[in-house]
């Protein structure tokens, strides 16, 4: 019983030590949306050849959030979609604007493939999480008499992502959703290192996924 109480107290302490995250979501709707029960969505991470590109873990997080909870959406995996429509959605060949969709659909087999997979919407996710500031210091020592970590270090992260939603039925841009989140994480050395983590990437993912679901199902906020 004593052990259980200690565990509960430790868990409560860890939960209370989660860092603070500030997040913001904005939406721009350009047309009405709505999804039939058999229609699907594909989430694509915008890839480029620079050092920064949308992290796969972020698009995985969005997919996971959209396929669970109330009103889960039908999702086609990014890899399957890119394979089925190869070579039209590779980093170098993917359309950069919804205006290119008509030209793309004129290619042999493309519209048939989209129709077979019943994909109604395509959401491009563009952005990344970057460390904007860091400082402090922590030192750990080990000796025959024992050891420990002392000091404090921090790092501030900014997560900024945009989802561009394209309607493959009307071949047009349905709208954009922007999610920003930032937070500071700490690592405090009080004999043992205690992390106090803010997870702005996770906050941005959850905010973006929630808004995307509302946007697509056309449910008023």
């Amino acid at each position, binding site marked *: 019983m004593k052990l259980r109480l200690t565990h509960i107290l430790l868990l409560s302490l860890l939960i209370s030590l989660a860092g603070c995250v500030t997040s913001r979501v904005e939406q721009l709707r350009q047309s009405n949306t709505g999804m039939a029960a058999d229609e699907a969505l594909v989430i694509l991470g915008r890839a480029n*050849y620079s*050092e920064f590109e949308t992290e*796969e873990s972020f698009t995985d997080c969005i997919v996971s959030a959209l396929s669970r909870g109330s009103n889960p959406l039908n999702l086609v995996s990014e*890899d399957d979609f890119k*394979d*089925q*429509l*190869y*070579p*039209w959605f*590779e*980093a*170098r*060949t993917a359309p950069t604007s919804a205006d290119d969709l008509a030209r793309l659909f004129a*290619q*042999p*087999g*493309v519209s048939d*493939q989209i129709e077979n997979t019943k994909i109604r919407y395509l959401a491009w996710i563009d952005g990344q999480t970057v460390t904007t500031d860091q400082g402090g210091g922590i030192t750990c020592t080990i000796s025959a008499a024992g050891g420990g970590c002392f000091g404090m270090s921090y790092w501030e992260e900014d997560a900024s992502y945009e989802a561009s939603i394209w309607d493959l039925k009307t071949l047009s841009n349905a709208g954009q959703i922007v999610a920003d989140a930032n937070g500071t994480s700490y690592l405090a050395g009080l004999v043992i290192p205690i992390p106090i983590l803010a997870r702005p990437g996770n906050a941005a993912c959850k905010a973006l996924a929630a808004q995307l679901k509302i946007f697509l199902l056309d449910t008023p906020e």
Partner: protein
Amino acid sequence: MVNSKSGDQVIGARLLAVTLVAACLILSAGCTTNVEVKGSLPTPLVKKLPLNMGVYYPPEFRNFTHREKIFEQGTWTVDMGTQNLEFFRNMFAAMFDQVVEIQDLDIPSGDEVGTGTVSVPENLDGIIIPEIAKYGFLTPKISGLNFFSASIHYRISIYDKTGNLAVNWVVVGYGKSPTSMFGSSEALNDATILAIRDGGARIAIGTFQHPAVLKWLRANNIALD
């Protein structure tokens, strides 16, 4: 007592030997990275040209293996053979009405358009030859970036009906993959697969936009929509 001590010594010696062998194995494994390229290489969705083409895959293309020794990073071997060959077979089958694989061909050394001749069978509209002119990769340690990158320089040569070189085109495929928790070989494999896909995408789409190809098609009275 004496027997017991010598027994301990024997056990100690055996433990030392096992440790040394294990250390040698770990060190030698760390010095060589082998990558047998595997991944998803789909067939392209492109317009089929009404041409009966011969395709010759040179032995170096069929069995392409890149070996490189990098300072302080050991020896790297990248074997692209089977995956790359199968991908090109599927791609050319998607691009042309009929494809005949030619088993043996003497390729002229010249690479200037209009020069060199190969023997083209009468029933073929031309012969296409893919080659890997260059393969290269960068590790995060070399580039200072947190991903592996790979590039493949494909040379596409097309000989017309008369056997003259009509098209000589170098296409560069590029791919990158973040450092993986599953090891360097997986990250380099992924980067190489992306480079093959990228090169293939450029060939599948760009072939029918390349000026020399369009000129060759016009000479064959084939119009693109």
